[in-house]
């Protein structure tokens, strides 16, 4: 078995888990969103890696090119990136409002205040 033929997928899994770890183990809400971003990017890398064809060219039709990379994952991921920033900004807006109400963005302190009520 060739290690290189699976290297990309392993990197994807490693990134996914690192992002996941940040989301569940860090208390800061902004940091959690950053972790979510890493998780998201790992999915992008998975799709693009799966669509790559060895010795293939970019999917822009040209003379004398026989193999192209798969255009479908590119389409899905391209839109997902822009949707990702839009949804991330919704998350950030919520963080700003939480800060306004609680005066903190640390999960533990927010929970403490909730329990004190």
């Amino acid at each position, binding site marked *: 078995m060739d290690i*290189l*033929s699976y*290297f*990309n*997928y*392993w990197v994807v*899994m*490693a*990134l*996914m*888990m*690192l992002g996941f*770890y940040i989301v*569940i*183990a*860090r*208390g*800061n809400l*902004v940091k959690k969103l*950053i*972790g979510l971003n890493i998780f998201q*990017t790992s999915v*992008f*890398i998975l799709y*693009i890696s799966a*669509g*790559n*064809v*060895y010795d293939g060219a*970019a*999917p*822009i*039709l040209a003379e004398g090119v026989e*193999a*192209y*990379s*798969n*255009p*479908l*994952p*590119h*389409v*899905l991921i*391209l*839109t*997902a*990136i*822009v*949707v990702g*920033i*839009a*949804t*991330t*900004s919704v998350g*950030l*807006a*919520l963080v*700003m409002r939480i*800060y*306004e109400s609680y005066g903190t963005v640390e999960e533990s302190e927010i929970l403490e205040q909730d329990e004190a009520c």
Partner: protein
Amino acid sequence: MEIFVDVVLLSMLVATAVALILVRGLMASIMLTSIYGLLSASFFVTMDAVDVAFTEAAVGAGVAPLLLLMTVALVGRREERTVSRHALVPLLLVTMTGALLIVGTLDMPPFGSADAPANQHVSPRYLQHTEAEIGIPNVVTAVLASYRAYDTLGEALVIFTAGVAVILILVPGDGRGTAQATLPDPISGDRQGIVHVVSKILIPFVLLFALYVQFHGDYGPGGGFQAGVIFASAFILYGLLCGLPAVVRVIPPTVVEVLAALGVLLYAVTGVLSLLGGKNFLDYSVLASDPVTGQHIGIIVIELGVGICVASVIIRIYYAFAAHLDRQRV
């Protein structure tokens, strides 16, 4: 060589992600996120995904860190050291899930094989028929704007909805939220500084480049999504330099809101027009006597719709964030 660059870039990505876990402080995290975006876009380039790299370049290295920064400017860069009683539980959970996923990857077809299931199904059809049916060289744009235009309409609507959600969350209902901050920006004093002069020279070129990306998307990498983000970045740069009131004078928030809706509407109306012509929703063949010309027109129109929608949503999000910051600073 391609494999070598690929391996080095991916290793750097993992290193950056590990550093993001280890580092404390949000400013440092954001700078690392920006580097992470640059790296992943370089990786997309080596994978021949030019359009994706384009988008990631504009979003991951530009807009995303800027929005994160504005949030951090409000909430402070402090990051508490989490004293969890169950510090081992997340680690264990992550390790186990990761191990299971890696075992799962062993069943996947080797990286780069042309006969992998993912590369079989519809993709060869797109590649073979794009030239005859759509008549543009960039297959990604053809799939995005014509074959799977219905998907893309959904994505544009999600972006629009996200913009609406940000407005609902951050803009107060009594009308004073719409960016009429009158306080002078503490840093806008030196209007003649080097940064100001150079940026003012560069902003028109950024806008021009955005237009090139918008209308060149049929022939090379680019299209509405990328152009929208680049266009919005130029406005954000102007806002950062001259303060929010200056940008709001250029495009008032209400105009941006109307434009965002107009972009989506342009897209949907194109679909309805093709329905009226007796074809399927978003089948552009009816827009001209020649089906291929019809496709050309349709793709340009809906890419324009997407571009307007994305640009105005991101500008509106920036307005909402900046106005919120200004209000909190008073």
